[in-house]
């Protein structure tokens, strides 16, 4: 039988899914043990048990100085920034996606501009944002928006253009105005794609969030990682990295669930 036709069974499939995860954990554990055997004070690859203890401490014990559990505090600050940035970008992208996708005048005005703007490396303008918006929350949120907005506008306007012309013409023959077509024909069909677009943008959004937190912040997941880097606190860094990964993973699953729940008609599109 050809390889392209060989489907793994259920048990084999589950084992194959687990395989790379197990391999990474195993490789880490072995590496850690080798290093710790040579030097028990080694900080580079802390034992998994050490990471577990650190994680437990970070999640439950308050910081003696501020009396706050810093990890939750950092999580809250980062998620608020992320939600603000992604939320603003999603709103603007929906608006501009509809305008560019539906109105030839807007397409002529903005399509080329957005294509050029999307080539600007967002991190290169981060210093400008710090100068213009200060070192507070605004510049971090703006960086996320600038980082993902051009991509989202291009994605969503393309999705609007992909709505079959027949559907739009049909709405015209039913007497719909441009506004009604935008709100009742294009927008509802765009929303499931917006969720897709947000899911794809979350990766870059985290990148920009952590980058801006690393450079200037007083709290936040990225800030903490870069702070403890100075003490080579690999156990803390790894806990934070795993935590961020888990957060990103759960957000993605939640968005997919939300899309299927809200837009049952979109079917396999999600």
């Amino acid at each position, binding site marked *: 039988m050809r390889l392209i036709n060989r489907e793994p069974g259920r048990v084999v499939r589950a084992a194959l899914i687990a395989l790379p995860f197990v391999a990474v954990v195993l490789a880490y554990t072995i590496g850690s043990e080798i290093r710790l055997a040579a030097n028990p004070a080694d900080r580079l690859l802390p034992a998994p048990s050490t990471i577990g203890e650190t994680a437990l401490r970070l999640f439950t014990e308050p910081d003696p100085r501020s009396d706050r559990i810093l990890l939750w505090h950092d999580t809250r600050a980062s998620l608020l920034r992320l939600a603000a940035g992604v939320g603003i970008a999603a709103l603007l992208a929906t608006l501009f996606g509809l305008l560019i996708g539906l109105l030839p005048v807007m397409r002529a005005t903005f399509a080329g501009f957005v294509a050029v703007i999307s080539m600007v490396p967002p991190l290169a303008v981060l210093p400008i944002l710090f100068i213009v918006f200060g070192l507070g929350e605004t510049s971090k949120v703006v960086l996320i928006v600038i980082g993902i907005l051009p991509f989202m506008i291009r994605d969503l306007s393309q999705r609007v253009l992909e709505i*079959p012309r*027949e*559907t739009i*013409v*049909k*709405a*015209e*023959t*039913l*007497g*719909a*105005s441009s*506004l*009604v*077509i935008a*709100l*009742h*024909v294009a927008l*509802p*069909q765009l929303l499931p794609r917006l969720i897709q677009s947000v899911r794809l943008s979350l990766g870059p959004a985290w990148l920009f969030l952590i980058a801006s937190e690393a450079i200037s912040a007083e709290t936040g997941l990225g800030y903490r990682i870069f702070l403890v880097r100075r003490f080579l606190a690999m156990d803390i860094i790894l806990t934070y990295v795993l935590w961020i990964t888990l957060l990103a993973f759960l957000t993605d699953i939640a968005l997919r669930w939300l899309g299927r729940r809200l*837009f*049952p*008609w*979109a*079917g396999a599109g999600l």
Partner: protein
Amino acid sequence: MSFVVAENIFQSYGPRPILERVNLEVEEGAFISIVGASGCGKSTFLRLLLAQEQPTRGEIRIAGSAPASEPGLDRGVVFQRYSVFPHLTVRQNIVAGESLRTSAGRFWGAARAAARARADETLARIGLEHVADQYPATLSGGMQQRLAIGQALAARPRILLLDEPFGALDPGTRLSMHDFLIELRRDIGMTVFMVTHDLEEGFKLGDRVIVFDKLRWDPTDPDAYGATITYDLDTRTEPGVSVASA
């Protein structure tokens, strides 16, 4: 004056002529089948009737009104695919036939209830009442096309344009769709234009069959000339007309 008048229509895309000197007069309530080979301009002619495109020369008038610059309420349309809104349920699709023309695009309160009641009547007539709350994606191709026709008729257009409406259906479904359309037409007596590549279908459904073809043909440059109406056959008064003569 006839209900639909197409006067000396020329249409070209860039230097390439598609249609030339097309003249057509149609009485109210007639069913016109438009047939012809692929690329003969029959779908182009339908888009001109729909006002989705403007002719290079000539004009099309419905009931003596000025030529339309874009598709509107007086022209209903059903395409081969994508003729219903995927994000609306079957009933909402029928209601959309009446509600999209409002400035808000939807009904509230009593108007909404009345529109839903009318939609349910329409659904009963087109045999879709049992799937009223489902989304179009769950329907068969034939049911989707019935829904598309029902939705177009809910808007009460002056003419109904069908662009290969049954082209994507299997032969059995196609036959039942013919019966459906014949019956529906008996009830409402709408003026219908139907583009089809199926001659038999054209003759079966149409009062008149219009054939598009090229009168002049340059073998070294097949695109040099456009097509026009080469046959205009009245199927109801000329029983001797057969498919072969077209």
